[in-house]
């Protein structure tokens, strides 16, 4: 018994010392890498190696220059009796220290040029898969060109975690409801654009960062070596929720990817058939309200606020607003088509008919709006067909 307790005492002591040591190291060592990722594409490794080459060259120059400087500061102090020399120019020396940095720069420029030329995608290189990436405040829209598969990818971190009401998850702010799925070992081309402001699509592990410019299309290629989950974020200030616009990519082996894409296409077909059926029947009011609240919190609350009061001067409130209390078709119009020249997007393509019907019903009855209107998917459908 006593032997045991001394043993455990020792263990405790050793553990305690280790604990204290690791606590001291913790502020810098916990999880965060201190260097650029080497990534999972050939280009990202090239970039990483370039980064390290320049870093070490800068370190060497720094050590030399600061070494000479500190030597002078220590040895040539007045308090040590140093007498000032009277040289103040030397054309030879000055030419030498113009030419040597020039040569070093040429040495840096050669690998940089090679990497850049190799990575350049002017559209002429063949791609096995093309994904259209569209930034829109504040979500990403992915479309697999040549298929019917397209979807929006939104931040999945609950607002309560951001507000500190819930404990934060491991992938806090770096998780989405629907990640982009890509194949490994295939050339993937991204064509990137935006619906509103400039965003920038960035996945560090691929060394791909490209701006999404409204009205223009950028293209960039990548080829992923390893299956896995890769996370990134929007890298261009795009308004209020710029910090809440993550990118998550799941890379799958080619055959798994093909199976996944096949499954998605079937789901799309199925959903279309569901929608057709839905047009023939009515949803119940409570069902509309419950679904509507869910849609509202996901898509609308960021601007109009969960309490429907908006941010005065920036985003109008819906509580008691002319739109929510006024004519139904005007309300449908603004949800389906958005409002040009403002942050209000067109949700016609982002949401299903049922979701749109539900959220409009919700907005017309929540927060004391109480119009009693129940908007049905068929109303949206009729609006679309009548309006076009």
């Amino acid at each position, binding site marked *: 018994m006593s032997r045991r307790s001394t043993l455990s005492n020792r263990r405790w002591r050793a553990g305690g010392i280790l604990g204290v040591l690791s606590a001291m190291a913790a*502020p*810098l060592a916990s*999880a*965060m*890498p*201190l260097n*650029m990722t080497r990534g999972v594409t050939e280009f990202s490794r090239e970039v990483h190696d*370039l980064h390290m080459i320049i*870093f070490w060259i*800068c370190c060497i*120059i720094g050590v030399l*220059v600061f070494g000479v*400087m500190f030597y*002078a500061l220590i040895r*040539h102090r*007045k308090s040590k009796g*140093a*007498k*000032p*020399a*009277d040289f*103040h*120019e030397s054309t030879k020396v000055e030419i030498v220290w*113009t030419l040597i*940095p020039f040569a070093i*720069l040429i040495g*840096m420029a050669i690998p940089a040029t090679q990497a*850049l*030329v190799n990575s350049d995608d*002017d559209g002429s290189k063949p791609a096995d898969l093309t994904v259209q990436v569209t930034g829109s*405040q504040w979500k990403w829209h992915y479309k697999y060109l040549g298929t019917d598969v397209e979807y929006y990818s939104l931040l999945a971190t609950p607002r309560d975690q*951001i507000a*500190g009401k819930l404990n934060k998850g491991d992938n*806090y*702010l770096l998780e989405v409801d629907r990640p982009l799925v890509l194949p490994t070992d295939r050339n993937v081309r991204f064509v990137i654009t935006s619906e509103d*402001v*400039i965003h920038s699509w*960035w996945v*560090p592990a691929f060394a791909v*960062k*490209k*701006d999404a*410019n*409204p*009205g*223009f299309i950028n*293209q960039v290629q990548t080829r992923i070596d390893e299956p896995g989950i890769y996370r*990134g*974020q929007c*890298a261009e*200030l795009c*308004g209020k*929720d*710029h*910090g809440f616009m993550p990118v998550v990519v799941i890379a799958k082996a080619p055959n798994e990817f093909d199976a996944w894409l096949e499954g998605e296409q079937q789901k799309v077909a199925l959903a279309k058939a569901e929608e057709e059926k839905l047009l023939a029947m009515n949803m119940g009011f409570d069902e509309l309200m419950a679904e509507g609240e869910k849609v509202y919190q996901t898509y609308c609350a960021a601007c109009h606020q969960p309490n429907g009061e908006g*941010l*005065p*001067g*920036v985003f109008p409130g819906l509580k008691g607003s002319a739109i929510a209390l006024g004519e139904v078709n005007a309300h449908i119009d603004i949800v389906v088509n958005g409002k040009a020249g*403002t942050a209000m997007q067109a949700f016609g393509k982002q949401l299903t008919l049922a979701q749109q019907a539900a959220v409009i019903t919700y907005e017309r009855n929540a927060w004391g709006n109480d119009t009693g209107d129940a908007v049905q998917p068929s109303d949206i459908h009729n609006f679309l067909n009548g309006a076009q």
Partner: protein
Amino acid sequence: MHATREIDAAPDMGVEQHHDHAHHGPASGLMRWVTTTNHKDIGTLYLWFAFIMFLVGGAMAMVIRAELFQPGLQLVDPHFFNQMTTVHGLIMVFGAVMPAFTGLANWLVPMMIGAPDMALPRMNNWSFWILPFAFLILLSSLFMEGGGPAFGWTFYAPLSTTYSGDSTALFVFSVHIMGMSSIMGAINVIVTIFNLRAPGMTMMKMPLFVWTWLITAFLLIAVMPVLAGAVTMVLTDKFFGTDFFNAAGGGDPVLFQHIFWFFGHPEVYIMILPSFGIISAILPTFARKKLFGYSSMVYATASIAGLSFIVWAHHMFTTGMPLFGELFFMYCTMLIAVPTGVKVFNWVATLWRGSITFEVPMLFALAFLVLFTIGGFSGLMLAITPADFQYHDTYFVVAHFHYVLVTGAIFSIMAAAYYWLPKWTGHMFDEGLAKLHFWCSLISVNLLFFPMHFLGLAGMPRRIPDYALQFADVNKLVSIGGFAFGLSQLIFLAVVIKCIRGGEKAPAKPWEGAEGLEWTLPSPAPYHTFETPPEVK
């Protein structure tokens, strides 16, 4: 001719014996400062204004760092956070660094070239006094419904046009006024340097501070109208239905970035060239040795200024430029390292075999030399286009430009303030307190900005109000550094006030190794500088 000009000019005409000097001092009371045309008064106004703006902009930085102290949103909402980053940037660039340099130019250029005053004193008064109004307008926009500008100090379209609040109009108006002030200041510096140099002071005998300001003034005149054009286009796009930056109307949002950075890149050199002049004055003084390579310093400054016009697109490597463009801007940007390297080597050679002492101006100058060089290294890394794809818009960039602007521009301004404070006030400053200011600033500024390099490399984007958990510890460290740096600047305020109110009398030349015409004047410098021009051999 205006009456006061005649009286001012009278001594130069050799009629001073008929003149009562008592009327020549400054008027008293508030109106002295409002109506003054004296270069020292205006220099003082600029310096105080810059310091107040430094504190205001710094307070905004404290809000930013407090929000980023831990993950999650605690203090401010993201929209207000964006207003803080935007206005912090605008205030620090246009309200703190640029006016501080203009203040130094006002004080020092006439004293250094043996002139009686600036060449255009009435305009000098105007170019200062419109500034407080520009910033009142900018700051008041924060209280508008919808808040102030929230699109970053670079105000990229269409965020600043289609998607901005009504305060954009106030933002544009205030930027126009700041631009006018800068251009008037620049014209004054150029005219003064070209026309009022003392007999015998050839261009290649001018102190480097005068040279660097001359080149800066030309940069200002070249690029401020470009900024004015950019903000005007933002204004008409937003309010008058034009489509300069709107693709749907035939415009191009990337065009905005080209125009902005054609202004913005030279602008960053506007904020560092005068520093080069300051450091080139201080290092030789405390090394008791002439500046190494004076003429190559002049040529290096001029070539940096020239190159600054052809590198703007290195801010835009991820916008989707053609390969040729990316290569061209990469090579040109890398090239800037050559003249910058020459300057650093020359400064180190100035220290070499000197007789060095470590008074406070020297401490700041040495810190500048080391830390600005580190900022230069990260600049070189950013120039490498493929690597920039990873660095761009991350905290690595934030670390880089704060190293060159805070430990570069602002440290040099502090070095200058300590160096010339005895000349301005007639008193020596409290050396102990000033040293405390230096060491607190040096340690905290590195705690503040150095870890940002790691945040950027690890993948934290800039301008986000909240971040992933892995960045938490380093952000906490950075915020602590930020608060410490902010508080340290109050020591500076104490030193300056104490020095103005009294202290050991300063001799005409308080620094043993100092050279230059300003040290031939008594301390404090007389209200009218050089009533008879000094002879320069």
